C-alpha cells in the first residue's frame, strides 16, 4: 500500500485491509460512494461472498505482513444472506484475537463489525474510527521490526 508513511507518529497513516461481505457491507461501502460520504483513504476493501468464508489466515497474514489493521464487516445478526455466516465469522474472529495476543499484536487491530447495505454512513464512521484508533496504537510493531 502506498499510503505516505513517515517516521513521526503524528504523520503515521495506518494501512487497513477490509474484508467485506458481498451482500451487506460491500453494498454499504458502495452506498457510501453513491452518497458521497467522505472517509479516510486508508482502507483497501477485499470482497468475499460471506464473512463466513473468512479463513483465519486472511486475518493473521496481513497483520504479520505489516498491515496496521484488519476490518471484517458482515451483515447484521439475522440478516446474513446465507443464514449464519456472520456468526461463524464472529466466533472465528474472537478466536483469532486470542492468537494475535500471543504474537504481541493488540487485539484492537482486528475489528469485526455488522454493517448493512443501507448504512453507508456507518462505513464512513467505522473507517474513520478505526484510523483514529490505529493512530493511537501506532504502527504495527511487526511491520516496524521488519523495516529496521
Amino acid at each position, binding site marked *: *500500500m*502506498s*499510503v505516505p508513511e513517515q517516521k513521526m507518529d503524528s504523520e503515521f497513516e495506518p*494501512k487497513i*485491509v477490509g*474484508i467485506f461481505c*458481498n*451482500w*451487506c457491507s*460491500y*453494498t454499504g*461501502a*458502495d*452506498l*457510501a*460512494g*453513491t*452518497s*458521497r*460520504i*467522505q*472517509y479516510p*483513504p486508508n482502507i*483497501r*476493501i*477485499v*470482497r*468475499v*461472498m*460471506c464473512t*463466513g*468464508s*473468512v*479463513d483465519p*489466515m*486472511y486475518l493473521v*497474514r*496481513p497483520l504479520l*505482513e*505489516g*498491515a496496521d489493521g484488519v476490518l471484517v464487516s458482515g*451483515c*447484521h445478526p*439475522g*440478516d446474513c*444472506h*446465507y*443464514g*449464519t*455466516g456472520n456468526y*461463524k465469522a464472529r466466533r*472465528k474472529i474472537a478466536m483469532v484475537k486470542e492468537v494475535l495476543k500471543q504474537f504481541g499484536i493488540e487485539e484492537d487491530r482486528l475489528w469485526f463489525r455488522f454493517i*448493512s*447495505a*443501507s*448504512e*453507508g*454512513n*456507518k462505513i*464512513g464512521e467505522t473507517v474513520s474510527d478505526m484510523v483514529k484508533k490505529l493512530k493511537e496504537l501506532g504502527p504495527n510493531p511487526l511491520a516496524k521490526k521488519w523495516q529496521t
Partner: protein
Amino acid sequence: MSEKNVLTGAVMVVGGGISGMQSALDLAEAGYKVYLVEQKPAIGGTMAMLDKTFPTNDCAMCTMSPKLVDVGRHLNVDIITNAEVLGVEGEPGNFKARVLKRARYVDEDKCIACGRCAEECPVKVPSEFDGGLGTRKAIYKMYAQATPNAYAIDKTKCLKFKNPKACGKCLKVCEANAINHNMEDEELELEVGSIILSPGFEPIDPTPYGEYGWGIYDNVITSVQFERMLAASGPYQGHVVRPSDHKEPKKIAFIQCVGSRDVHRGKSYCSAVCCMYATKEAIIAKEHVNGLEATIFYMDVRAYGKDFEKYYDRARQQYGVRYVRSMISSVKELQQSKNLLIRYLTPEGEYKEEEFDLLVLSVGLKPSSTAKKLAEAVGVELDEDGFCRCDEFNPCSTTKPGIFAGGAFVAPKDIPETVGDASSAAAQAARVLAEARGTLAQVKEYPPEKDVSGEEPRVGAFICNCGINIGSVVNVPDVVEYAKEIPGVVHAEEFLFTCSQDNIDRIKQRIKEHNLNRVVVASCTPRTHAPLFMASIREAGLNPYLYEQANIREHASWVHQDNPEAATEKAKDLVRMAVEKVKLAKPVHTSTFEINRKALVIGGGPSGMTAALNLAGQGFSVYLVEKEPQLGGNARLLKHTIDGSNPQKLVENLSGQVNEHPLVEVLTGTEIIEVSGYLGNYKTTVKTESETKVLEHGVVIVASGAEEAKPNEYLYGEHDGVLTQRELEARLEDGMLDGVKNVVMIQCVGSRQEGRPYCSRICCTHAIKNALTIKKKNPDVNVFILYRDIRTYGMKEKYYRQARERGVIFIRYELEEKPEVNAVGDTLEVKVNDPVLNRQLVLDADLLVLSTGIVPRKDSEKLSRMYKLPLNADGFYNEAHMKLRPVDFAADGLYLCGLAHSPKLINESLAQANASAIRAVTLLAKDRLESLGIVATVNEKWCKGCGLCVNICPYGARVIDENRNVAVVREVLCQGCGACVAACPSNASQQNGFEKQQILTMIDAAIS
C-alpha cells in the same frame, strides 16, 4: 392448430413494487417473456422506502436489492417505467395492451447515474420518496439503488419546460449526453397472453384527522415519514429527531388506526399491517435513541401473523414498549416546547393526559390512486372499498378471465402475503399459458470458448474515467501507466465510459489483438457491472470467470473527493489487487444436470390439491400423497367461510379434478416412510396398507396441514355444553340450537400464553362467523364473546362491526384474569371480570364455545427429519426467508404452503399453494439445472474426509463419499457462501472465484 388458438407466451405485469417484481421473476424464470409496467421512474414500490421489516427487523434494502438486480438484469423482463396502461383488448391467451410510456427526458441506456445533473439542478422540491422530509431536484433518481439505475426529469418542476431558454445546467454537466428535453411520449402496443395487476397501495392521508394535528404541528409525523427518518439512507441519515428543533426526542407516541377501522371519516376495514409496523418502528427507535420511551395508543393489537405475537411480546418485555388501550380524544401542541399533549379515554372510562415530544400517526393503507383508472382500462371490477374483486376460492383471479391480481391491490396485506400472492398470480397466469411456455423467452447464445490452460497470464486492464466521476478525482492516465508496469499486464487503456457499447466492443477487439486471456476493468462496483463485463468477455471467447473488477469509483473517487492524490494511490492499489487476483483465476464451468420433472405434493387438503392441479395444469406430473383414506383435510369439517363460500364444494370440486387429471397420481391412505436423494432426484418410499413403493421425483411441496388444538380446560370433555368452534359449526349446520338462549365464547383458549405463545390468526374470525350464524338463525339468542384482542384483520373487520350491530356482546379479559367456568346442572356459569364496568359478571351459558387455535401435526417432526426441513419454535415449518421467500425452503427444490407454514384461512392457503407450484415450476421448466459459478470445490488428494464441511453447510450441498472417504460438493445445491472453505482444516476446500490463494494474494498486494 388454427392461428386463433396459438397462445402468446408473454405476460404484462402492471406495478413494479415487490409484488410485481416477484410475479415478473417467477414468470421469467418459468419461461415467459414479461413486460413490467411501472408508473414511476423506478421499480421497488413501497418496500424500497422501508428501513427495516417486521418481525425479524431485517434491513429492507438488503433483502430487496438482489431482487432489484435480478429483475433489472433478466433477459426476459422488460422494465417499462413512467408508464400507464391505456386499454386492453382481446381474450385470455391473446391480449393487446396499449401502454403510454411517458418521456423520461434522460436516456436510460446512456445515463450512468453519476448524479452531476442533480447537483447542478437549481430546483428543489420535497421528495415523495422521503415522505416530504427531505428534498430532491427536478432531475432526480428516486433512491440510491433505483432500478433502472438512471435519472429522470420531473417535467412539472423543470425550469426548461417552463421556458426553453432557461437553465439547461444539467445538459452542460452531463458527460454521457443522456439528457434530452425533446424526448416524446410513446404509445406501445404489447401482445401478451395474460396480465397481472399489482399497482399496490398508498398511505391514507391524515389531513382530515385535524384533531391529531398532522400538517399543523411540527412534531406530528406519519409512520411513513418516521420510516424514512429511521432509514440510514433517509433524509436524516437514520437520526431520530424532532422536525421542530432537530433534537432527539425522549418520549414518543404512536396513534394506531389513523384512517382505518373508521366508518365515518376513513376506511371501515383494518389496514392489517399498522400494529406490527408501529411495533417495529418503536423497537428500532428505541435502538436508535438511548433511553427513549415509546408508547403505542391502540384499540386491539393485531399481532396475528407468523411469529408476530413473539415480536409483540419482545417489544413489551425486552424493549419496554408501552401499549395503552385507549381512544384518543385530542392532541394539542404546547407553545414553548412544541411538545404534544395527548388526551385519551381509557377502557375504564377515565380521561387522561400525557405529554410527548414526538407523535407518529400509524396511517392505514388505501388502494393506489391509479387503481380505479387501471381497473377501468383493463376491465376488471373493484369492490366497495376500491380494492380488486377476486374470487375467494380462486385466489388472485379477477372478474375478467386471464387477468390476475397480486399484492395490496387485492386487500391491505404485509410483505410475505404480498410476495406469496404475487407468486400465486404468476402461477395462475402460467397455467393459462402453459402451452406457450418458452415460445417467447430468449436464451443467450455464445461463441465457443477459448482454451487458455497452460498459457501465461496476459492481462488487459481497462481504466474508466466514468465521465468525470472517476477522472475528476483519480488521475486516470497515471493509473493506466501504473497498470502497464504490473507484471502480467500486457495492455492497459483508459476509457471515458467503459460500459458504453463502443468501448465494450473495443475491449473485445483488444482481447483478440493482444491475445488477452484475463481482463480487469477498474470502474464502478462489480455488484452491478461485473455481469455485463463478464458476458462481454465471454462474447469474445474468454471464460467469464477470467475477469476481475476494481471498484475505483464507489470505493475511491467518490469517497475521497478532497484527496485526489490518496484516491489515485488507492485506485492503483485496487487495480494491482485485481490484477494479482485475476492472474490466479481459472476458467469456471458451471455444471448442469438432468432432473426428474415429477413433483411430490405431501398432503391432500385444499392446499395440496391446489398445488397439484396448478402443476398438472402447467404440464408437470404430480404424485399427491395423503395419509388419510380420503382427500380434503380440515376443510371437510368446515361448513362455510365467513365470506359465504362453501369449503365442502371446494373439496368436492378439487378432489374431482385431481382424481380425473391424467397427470396427477393420487395416493390416499399412504404414508411416507423413507426418503433418499436430493434436489432433482428424490426417491421417496411410501407405504399403504397393502404395499410399499418408491416414488421418484424432482421436487417436493409440503402441504401437510395442521390440526385444531384440543383444549384441556374450561370443562371441555367433562360437560356436554362445552365444545370447540369447529364442533359448534357442525352443530349449527345441523340446526341444533333448540332451547339455547345464551352462548358464551372464550377466545385464545390455550393460545398466546405459556406453552403455546403464538396467535392462531383465524379464531377471532371463526368465532364471529359462528356468532353471526347464530344471530341469523335466532336473533334472540344472546352471544357473548370473551376476548383479549379482536384480530379481525384486513377486510374481516366488517364482520366484527356486523356482529356488534347485531347485538353480539364483546367482553375483554386479561390473561391474568381468565374467565372461570362452573357447571350448574345442564348449563354453565361463566364468571369474568369486565374492565369497562370494573366488576365481575356472571353469565349463564347453555353452550360454552372454546376458540382453541391451531397446532402443528404431530408427525411434522418425522417429515422434517426425512427431508431435512427446519421447524420453528412453535413446530411449524420454517420458510427460507420470512419476507421474500415465504413458500420456499432454504434448500432448492423444497416448497411449503398452507397450514404447514402457519395458521391461516382457506383462501390464504390456496394462494400459497399456487405460489409453491410456480416456485417449483421455475426449476422444473428448465431443460437442465445449472449450478452457480462460484461454488465450492474439493481437492480430493488433500481431503481427509473429516466431515466438518458437511456439518457447516447450510444447504446440504456437502456429503462424504463413503467409498472413497472424501467430501464431495453437490454443485447444484451449493449457494457459494464459502463457509466450508473456511472450515476445512486441510485446505482441500476452495470456492471458485474466491480461492484462498486469490484472497491472500489480494491482501498481500494491498499492503505491499
